[in-house]
């Protein structure tokens, strides 16, 4: 049972990571910096609860703000460039953050042990949950409350004018600009929202794994972050959730019985999925079919 609860925790945190990339992808930008904001969130939240004994929610708020501020700061120079240049710039930022934490040591003596991040060895003993008597189920509920809140907020944003503006920039920048949209402002705000979500996700990640190190936040995590929304489709937030379940639940955990072959299948299945469904698993066509099915059932019930 604990295994499945753990899996649900992982899915929740990775959904947050995917959603943070989703915001940026809506404006047509590919950002590999999400792992960097995730790392900042993780380290900041961990240091606040471990070294300063702050309550978790407060620490998460601070890491969200810092993630957002960092994203905003990165957004301005990085968003002057497009396409490949932006991919490289953001990937470089992510790597720079990782390397910063690789070289970052700040430890405080607490009783017999040293607490705090220690360069390449990572940051151990982030024991907020066990110290405050949170069971696995409590943690699951806490994570998913946040995930649902974030998804609801993005869902609402998608349906409002903000979402329309974001998608307009994503579809055709020139057209959007000519209708009076300030595209730089839109892109930087999307990046900031993404940074806030990634910061929260990172903060939670640090607390349920209890041990973080720089290598976890490398370029692989960054590609996973953009893989979720692209694989799931950008038509709505549930695509990202579906892709996280597909990758984390099915490909990583579900195929464990295959042993070594699992890893081989993993890359191959992503390639196959992109060849068969280039617009994502949950694209506009599937949504239309789903809607039609639902409405037909509704009619039958009504009749």
């Amino acid at each position, binding site marked *: 049972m604990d295994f499945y609860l753990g899996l649900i925790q992982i899915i929740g945190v990775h959904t947050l990571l995917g959603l943070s990339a989703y915001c940026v992808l809506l404006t047509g930008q590919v950002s590999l910096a999400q792992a960097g904001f995730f790392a900042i969130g993780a380290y900041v939240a961990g240091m606040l609860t471990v070294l300063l004994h702050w309550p978790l929610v407060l620490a998460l708020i601070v890491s969200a703000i810092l993630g957002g501020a960092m994203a905003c700061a990165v957004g301005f120079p990085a968003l002057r460039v497009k396409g490949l240049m932006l991919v490289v710039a953001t990937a470089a930022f992510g790597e720079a953050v990782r390397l910063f934490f690789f070289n970052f040591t700040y430890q405080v003596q607490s009783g017999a042990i040293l607490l705090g991040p220690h360069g390449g060895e990572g940051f151990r003993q982030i024991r907020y949950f066990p110290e405050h008597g949170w069971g696995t189920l409590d943690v699951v509920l806490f994570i998913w409350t946040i995930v649902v809140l974030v998804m609801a907020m993005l869902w609402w944003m998608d349906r409002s004018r903000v979402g329309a503006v974001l998608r307009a920039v994503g579809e055709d920048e020139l057209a959007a600009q000519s209708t009076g949209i300030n595209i730089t402002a839109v892109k930087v705000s999307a990046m900031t929202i993404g940074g806030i979500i990634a910061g929260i996700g990172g903060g939670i990640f640090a607390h349920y794994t209890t041990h973080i190190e720089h290598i976890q936040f490398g*370029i692989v995590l960054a590609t996973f972050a953009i893989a979720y929304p692209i694989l799931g489709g950008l038509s709505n937030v549930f695509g990202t959730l579906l892709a996280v379940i597909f990758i984390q639940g099915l490909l990583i955990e579900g195929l464990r019985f295959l042993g070594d072959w699992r890893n081989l299948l*993993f890359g191959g299945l992503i390639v196959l999925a992109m060849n068969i469904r280039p617009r994502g698993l949950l694209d506009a066509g599937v949504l239309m079919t789903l809607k039609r099915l639902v409405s037909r059932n509704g009619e039958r019930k009504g009749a």
Partner: protein
Amino acid sequence: MDLLDLIDTIQSIADGVLFGTTYALLGIGFTLIFGVMHKINLSFAAASIGAAYASLLILSAVKAPAVVVFLMAAAAGGVLGGLVYLVGFKFIPLANPLATLMSTVGLLLLIDEIIVHTTAGVPLNYPALFSDVIVPIGPFNLRGDLMFVFVLGCVCMTVLLLLLYRTKLGLATRAVSQQPTASQLCGIGIMRVNILTFVITGVVGGIAGAMTGAAIGMLSPLLSLPLTVKGLIVTVIGGLGSIPGAIVAGLVVGGLENFFQFLRGVSERDLYIMLLLFAFLVFRPGGIFTVAAGRD
């Protein structure tokens, strides 16, 4: 800084520049594919390492002198390049740049995993040529294996430049990268040019992979991600689509990397390369050889 430090510094920069030809070749590969397809092929560096592995596999089956390994790597790289095009690009509609980005990420993971699977994750020794030769020039020593890598890289670049600027195929490639529709109207088969570009960049990548193996002395699947990042950085610093830019940027990145490693240690050196990249993105987003671009 006294004289001895200065000599050491120059020595490390020189070593880095010699190794930088590998980065230059990778940068050229990324730039060429981006030029004709306007797409990023993130699996390029992984395929290059894969080609180097394949050459080792061939060499273990057939007895041959060590020089042959480079030819084998080039051939394997060409085959892999064609395969990458078939699997990751051909069947995905052009209007979905995100889908091809993702499929190349999938290919990157797939190639890495195939390598891990066939070698059980153990790094393999790669035959280095002239590794016992050391050429002393004044107070400096030039390592024979690095010199060989450098010369091979230069030959490879020269051939590539001749191919691009002196043959019909090169003309077609450049035409497609400038204006696909117009070049199609002139009777150039875009599909054919695309496949050939992938094969040619694959050959270049294979040689780069073999050069990396020869310079480091071993091959490991862990090399593919750092090489991807370095190759992309070189592409951007050199300017997208600019081959001379990629060459110069590759040498500069190689030299500076070793310089920072000498000054600040191996764990911090990449940090400064990233900062260099940011400086370029902010002040010269068009790369080394373009006039400073205005804001958009």
